């Protein structure tokens, strides 16, 4: 057994897993606040990464300026998507809303290919040193940055929901829209806000992935991998989403280790999360922390 490789892969899993956690968190944010299952989450990562790339490469903006501009852009972009595409769908059956986000993902995916081409583009280097040594393990600097950024975003999100006025308004809306409205919360604004925050957070995750792997349409797979994570954690639990993301990330890399060392099937890395997804749906459909959906008539 190759311990060195296993540890390396588990570290990878932790880093990728926290990123899944961040994306899953922004997915659950939209689901909780607006009851929309967003199939275009991965495309939000993609758009954010491309915008940041374009700012840095095409317009020569330094990273510390490009990042805030990207975040502001994505904030506005999120509000626009909600207003133009999702607002007319309020009150429509859930299937139609799902279909709109699926169509949205097709449009965004194709539009990005149209504007930026199909070839993957490397991100300009941000750190001068390639790797740092932690407890004797060589870890790439970008990985450390990715982990720190992810944890920071999770902490920020926790603060937002626990302490800030808007976060509390959002939680109230998620609990009961009518009650929230009668307390003077503008549900319309909360809906727009949840998309804006989700898009911004996703874009940061997108940029982090892009810094590690380069920008390509493959980024949108994060939007698909989110589903095993949120189903595992429970569809409406933010803590569950984070934990689910980390577990899926670790599991993927562990599957790759088993595959590479013993099974030699190839590609197990890609599909293992989906097998997990089916198994969870079979034995514990509401996930680890999800609320059980009990209906009283």
């Amino acid at each position, binding site marked *: 057994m190759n311990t060195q490789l296993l540890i390396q892969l588990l570290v990878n899993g932790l880093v990728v897993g926290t990123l899944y956690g961040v994306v899953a968190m922004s997915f659950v944010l939209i689901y909780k606040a607006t009851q929309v*299952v967003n199939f275009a989450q991965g495309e939000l990562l993609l758009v954010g990464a491309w915008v940041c790339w374009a700012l840095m490469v095409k317009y020569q903006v330094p990273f510390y300026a490009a990042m805030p501009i990207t975040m502001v852009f994505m904030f506005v972009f999120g509000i626009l998507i909600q207003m133009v*595409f999702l607002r*007319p*769908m309020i009150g*429509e*059956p*859930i*299937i*139609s809303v*799902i*279909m*709109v986000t*699926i*169509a*949205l*993902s*097709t*449009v965004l*995916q*194709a*539009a990005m*290919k*149209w504007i930026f081409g199909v070839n993957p583009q490397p991100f300009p280097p941000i750190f001068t040193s390639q790797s740092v040594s932690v407890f004797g393990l060589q870890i790439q600097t970008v990985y450390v940055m990715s982990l720190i950024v992810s944890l920071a975003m999770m902490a920020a999100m926790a603060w937002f929901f626990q302490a800030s006025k808007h976060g509390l308004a959002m939680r109230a809306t998620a609990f009961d829209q009518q009650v929230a409205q009668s307390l003077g919360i503008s549900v319309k604004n909360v809906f727009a806000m949840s998309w804006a925050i989700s898009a911004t957070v996703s874009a940061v995750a997108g940029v982090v992935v892009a810094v590690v792997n380069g920008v390509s349409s493959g980024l949108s797979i994060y939007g*698909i991998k989110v*589903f*095993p994570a949120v*189903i595992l954690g429970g569809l409406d639990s933010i803590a569950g989403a984070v934990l689910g993301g980390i577990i899926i990330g670790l599991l993927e890399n562990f599957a790759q280790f088993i595959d590479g060392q013993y099974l030699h*099937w*190839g*590609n197990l890395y*890609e*599909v293992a999360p*989906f*097998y997990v*997804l*089916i198994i969870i*749906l*079979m034995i514990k*459909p509401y996930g680890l922390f999800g609320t059980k*959906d009990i*209906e009283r*008539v």
Partner: protein
Amino acid sequence: MANSLIPAGDFRTSYAADTTIFPTVTSRNFAIAGVLLAACAPFMLNDYWMSLLIAIGIYGIAALGLNVLLGFTGQISIGHAAFFLFGAFTSAYLSTKMSVPTFFAIPLAGAVTAIVGLIFGLPAARLKGLYLAIATLAAQYILLDFFARAEWFSGGSVPATAEPFSIFGYNVTGDHQYFYVVLAYVVVSFLLVTNLMRSRDGRALIAVRDHYLSAEIMGINLTKYRTLSFGIAAFFAGIGGALYAHYQLVVSYEGFGIERSILFLAMVIIGGLGSIMGTLMGTAFVVLLPEAMEWISAALRGGLIDQTLGLKNNITFLREIAIGAIIIAFLVFEPDGLAHRWHQIKAYWKLYPFSH
């Protein structure tokens, strides 16, 4: 004339009148004339148009299955392309490796696909539509990975071959002859589904869609009907896939990713959720749209629009954008699809000088 017009008001007094397929004699005559006209098509059209008509027929059958699931039962599947492909590989496998005659291989492929569909559909059928969407998403990735891996079944990276269609020792060759095979399957499938919707089971499916709690209180077994509906959807996907296999004669898993599943959803939504004839309209729309964009871009070649958009190189992306935009537009502005529009046009002409 007496039976050729629907009188104002609803005068159905018996169950037979309520469940009739064709409300008037004229509508029945039109349906028969439509099939006859389609049967004459090979004598009038060239290969290019025949291939388009065959594509409409094949995808139409698969989309019909999806419409039973999405339009009539209110469940969503994002893995329809994977089931379509599974039918194609199964039929190819049965006809070449097991030397089952193609005449039997096609319905058999449908049955096998239905069973595979049930394996994925069962865990989700206990839950709401949302969970089926996610389970079928997983099915899409798992099945495609299986096709890429299982060399005994799908040939892996080498495309699988399928036998040409033959009946009583007569080999069907060329688009013009194969069209009749597809036409027969289209007629049979559409009749089957129309009749299903007139039956007790069909009404149960609609009840599950409209209000599942009330349906359950009325004694409809939710799990059974959701599973049944998913099985039907997978069955027709398998039939469509098998017809595709014996038409193309080679089947490769490439090009059947999630984009293709979204195309199937587009067919159903554009045609009209819960409309049987609408499915065919929607399929025709989705099949002809890329062709129409091709013609337009050819007509614009060299012009100003061509230069600014770079049509020649970017036509694939523009096509995808158009498909997505059209789905959104239909969902926002015309949720009942082309079938609804068609009814409005008919109503307009029926009442022509006095539209109100």
